[in-house]
């Protein structure tokens, strides 16, 4: 087998600018045609000037047609898909609301009982998104999503119940020796499962990767700093800042995921095979 000519190596590198399905289907022919055009230019009497002009034309051709082909792929994918169902959209909107309410604590001061209600709404939003993500992820990731979604739902539901129980108690959870441990464990499992859940939602691709990364980073920060005892009550330390940033990141992650699941289009049965992957 002979090594590819230098023009072929350069042109193959340029082909990476085209969408992968197009490259796979026509890559070899594009390389062959570019080689033919360069050979023709070398054989003309113009010599190096002709070859340079042909290279410039090849570069301009790639610069014009590669973006157009990306747009075409998007147009085809869009035409072969339909919007998320009304139920999934509603779950996404609920999730965005939950995330916004969690993040709102960093904008407004929310006192006592209202702070607990904030956590209730946040839990409901996270549960809604876990259900929506499970509905959207294909197998086999769907099965893993089912397990993780179930864990997220259980952990958030547990935390939600503890928050509601805490509202009716005479003293705050941190002062209640009996209640403190169960509340701590509910919080630990919630933030930890949120973080792990971030790994699987990245499978949805695109913007979901950002939402998933926010959940992973946010969950890790909260569990690492706050839940494992590096943050002490009333102490203004770097660990406290990191833990609070983790809470904010977690909220942002759920907002992003809510937007993703509410706006994500699903392939039609007949068009599923034609949709570009990734």
């Amino acid at each position, binding site marked *: 087998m002979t090594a590819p000519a230098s023009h072929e190596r350069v042109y193959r590198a340029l082909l990476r600018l085209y969408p992968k399905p197009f490259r796979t289907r026509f890559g070899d*022919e594009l390389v062959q045609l570019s080689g*033919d*055009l360069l050979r023709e230019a070398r054989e003309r009497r113009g010599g190096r000037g002709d070859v340079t002009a042909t290279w410039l034309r090849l570069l301009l*051709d*790639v610069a*014009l*047609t590669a973006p157009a082909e990306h747009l*075409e792929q998007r147009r085809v994918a869009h035409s072969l898909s339909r919007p998320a169902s009304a139920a999934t959209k509603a779950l996404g909107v609920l999730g965005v609301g939950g995330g916004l309410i969690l993040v709102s604590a960093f904008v407004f001061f929310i006192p006592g009982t209202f702070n607990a209600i904030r956590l209730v709404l946040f839990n409901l939003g996270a549960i809604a998104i876990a259900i929506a993500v499970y509905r959207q992820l294909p197998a086999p990731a769907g099965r893993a999503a089912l397990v993780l979604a179930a864990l997220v739902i259980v952990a958030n539901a547990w935390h939600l119940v503890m928050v509601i129980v805490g509202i009716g108690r005479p003293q705050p959870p941190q002062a209640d020796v009996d209640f403190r441990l169960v509340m701590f464990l509910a919080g630990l499992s919630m933030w930890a499962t949120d973080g792990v859940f971030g790994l699987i939602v990245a499978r949805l691709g695109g913007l979901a990767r950002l939402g998933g990364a926010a959940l992973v980073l946010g969950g890790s920060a909260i569990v690492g700093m706050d839940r494992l005892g590096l943050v002490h009550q009333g102490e203004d330390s770097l660990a406290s800042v990191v833990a609070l940033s983790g809470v904010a990141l977690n909220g942002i992650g759920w907002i992003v995921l809510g937007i993703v699941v509410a706006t994500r289009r699903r392939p039609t049965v007949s068009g599923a095979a034609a949709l570009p992957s990734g």
Partner: protein
Amino acid sequence: MEAAERPPATPPLSRTAVHVLLAIGPEERHGYAITAEITRITGGAVRLGPGAVYTTIKRLLDDGLVDEADDRPDPELDDQRRRYYRLTALGRAVAAREVRRFETLVQASRPWALEVPPT
């Protein structure tokens, strides 16, 4: 012989798509032959690059106007990696429609357009 199909009432093809359809014509042609034929029939005014040729061929394949020929020429005479394309019955009908469109355009414009002295 394939039966001629009536072309669907679709908007006119892009100029590049028409060039590729007319360059393939009644033959089976590979990419380089198509670009060379386009250069020839346009008097050198149009020189398409590989990206323009194959993004257009892809659309024509997807629309059923062109298909890939199964037969390969003698391996002694040509590179076996080349793929050859030909017009489908629908592609021929669309090409005929485009040629008629040009004819109408030319007939309507000729009386005045060719009176203008060249500058």
